[in-house]
């Protein structure tokens, strides 16, 4: 048993945070969605409402179930509201100092038995945990985007995480209907450690004139059976996000494949951010190819 009944999501004003809140609420848990920005929180709650309404339209949920899930999510803008949570999952942006400062604040509020989890995709769980006085009760729970649709969660113990904490977090993920996998506390865990350099390699192949972006994606899909090509995936997550991942990842790993390719930097500087800006490696107005 996880012993977890009341949960909080810190950074719920972001896309990932609200997705995690939906997962918890859908599993029947009272979920506090915390963000300091009332505007961001309001926007995120709106996104959750739209998602639940679409789930009803598609026959995935009844209207009653959707209402119940929405009713379990309580938006809060005061961190003190998290004090009674058995588990708080942090999903703020990837900045170690921001995360450490949040962990220190939550640590001072929650009861000693509470587990603090980080949804970091690149940073060290051990380093984040060091900001609290309960490193044995800190664990990594890395959800995939979009969290409300993807069942995989990378569960990572820091150096000081107790076996009991890990087991409780694992059991809780299973209660939420997620599929946990265990990884060591290493940069990028499994998913991003493989994906970020792979995407960079695809960008470098464009730079090196190996092929046009469309040809690269077509080759990867037809040759390997992947659902998406690496460049359409970068366009989807955002070139600015890929750049941020590189900047978080490379200084820790010093892996040349994780360093940001110059083309990526130039495209971000030019405002070519992918789908969100209408153009990245592909043009989403005319579906033509950037550079083609």
């Amino acid at each position, binding site marked *: 048993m996880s012993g977890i009944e009341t949960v909080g999501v810190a950074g719920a004003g972001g896309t990932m945070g609200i997705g995690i809140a939906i997962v918890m609420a859908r599993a029947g848990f009272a979920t506090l969605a915390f963000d300091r920005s009332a505007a961001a929180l309001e926007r995120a709650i709106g996104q959750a409402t739209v998602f639940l309404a679409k789930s009803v339209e598609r026959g995935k949920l009844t209207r009653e179930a959707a209402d119940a899930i929405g009713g379990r999510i309580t938006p809060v803008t005061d961190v003190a509201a998290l004090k009674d949570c058995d588990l708080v999952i942090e999903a703020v942006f990837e900045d170690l100092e921001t995360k450490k400062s949040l962990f220190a604040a939550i640590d001072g509020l929650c009861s000693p038995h509470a587990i603090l989890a980080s949804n970091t995709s690149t940073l060290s769980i051990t380093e984040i945990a060091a900001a609290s006085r309960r490193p044995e009760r800190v664990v990594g729970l890395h959800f995939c985007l979009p969290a409300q649709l993807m069942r995989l969660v*990378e569960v990572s113990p820091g150096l000081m995480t107790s076996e009991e904490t890990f087991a409780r977090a694992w059991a809780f993920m299973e209660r939420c209907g997620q*599929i946990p996998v265990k*990884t*060591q506390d290493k940069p990028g865990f499994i998913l991003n*450690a*493989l994906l970020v350099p*792979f995407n960079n390699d695809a960008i470098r192949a464009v730079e090196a004139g190996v092929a046009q972006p469309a040809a690269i994606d*077509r080759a990867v899909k*037809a040759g390997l059976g992947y659902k998406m090509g690496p460049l359409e995936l970068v366009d989807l997550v955002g070139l600015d996000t890929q750049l941020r991942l590189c900047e978080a990842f490379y200084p820790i790993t010093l892996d040349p494949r994780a360093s940001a390719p110059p083309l990526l930097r130039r495209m971000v500087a030019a405002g070519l951010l992918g789908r969100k800006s209408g153009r990245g490696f592909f043009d989403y107005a005319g579906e033509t190819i950037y550079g083609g």
Partner: protein
Amino acid sequence: MAAETLHYAVVGQSKSRSFPEDDPFLGGAGPTAEADILIILGGGFGAGPTAIPDDAALYRAVLVELGTECLSYHTGADGGPGNLLGFARYRIGELAPSPLVELVRGPGADDGAVATAEALFGAHGFVVAVCSDQAGRIVDRLVRPKYNSALRFLDEGLATQEAMDLTCRLGLGYPEGPIERVRRSGIEDHYRVSLALFEVYGTPAYTPAAGAVMAARRREHGL
């Protein structure tokens, strides 16, 4: 307008990685005298550079099958005549060939020849990706470093094989995880391809992972 029917002839070694003996594509080939396109099977460093036929100019395109080598191995650095292209149907290890044909254009490749080759393969249901003449072409250039990383992560205890493969299937939508793919296709084949790319690029990403090196060494002893 109806698509033009392109006639092709196939010559060269009987053992082709792109088109195994019973491949339906081979059944559609005709005599060289009637061919618009000449396909020369073989590929790899083993048999030495392919002899480009004296009458190559008579064809709209001459397609030389490639293994891990570049087209320039067969043509020299100038890329040969404009209608000469390289190609390889992507295949990992001994698994069945994929629908992908990587079509390689050298520095002086003629656009008409490229379009003709694309039309031929497209008409036979293949997916064509045109690329320049660089080692690993598109797919091996991208995927071999990933396989090497996955094998190294396994050695370093990042996660179990099951966890890594499951993560890639569920989190990235891959049909198969990297470790299961590389093992199912023959890890010694991964060693062979990685080593060929390492010889060209010299970067750690292409250094075969320990698991691949050991498997290849065992194979040398028939194990």
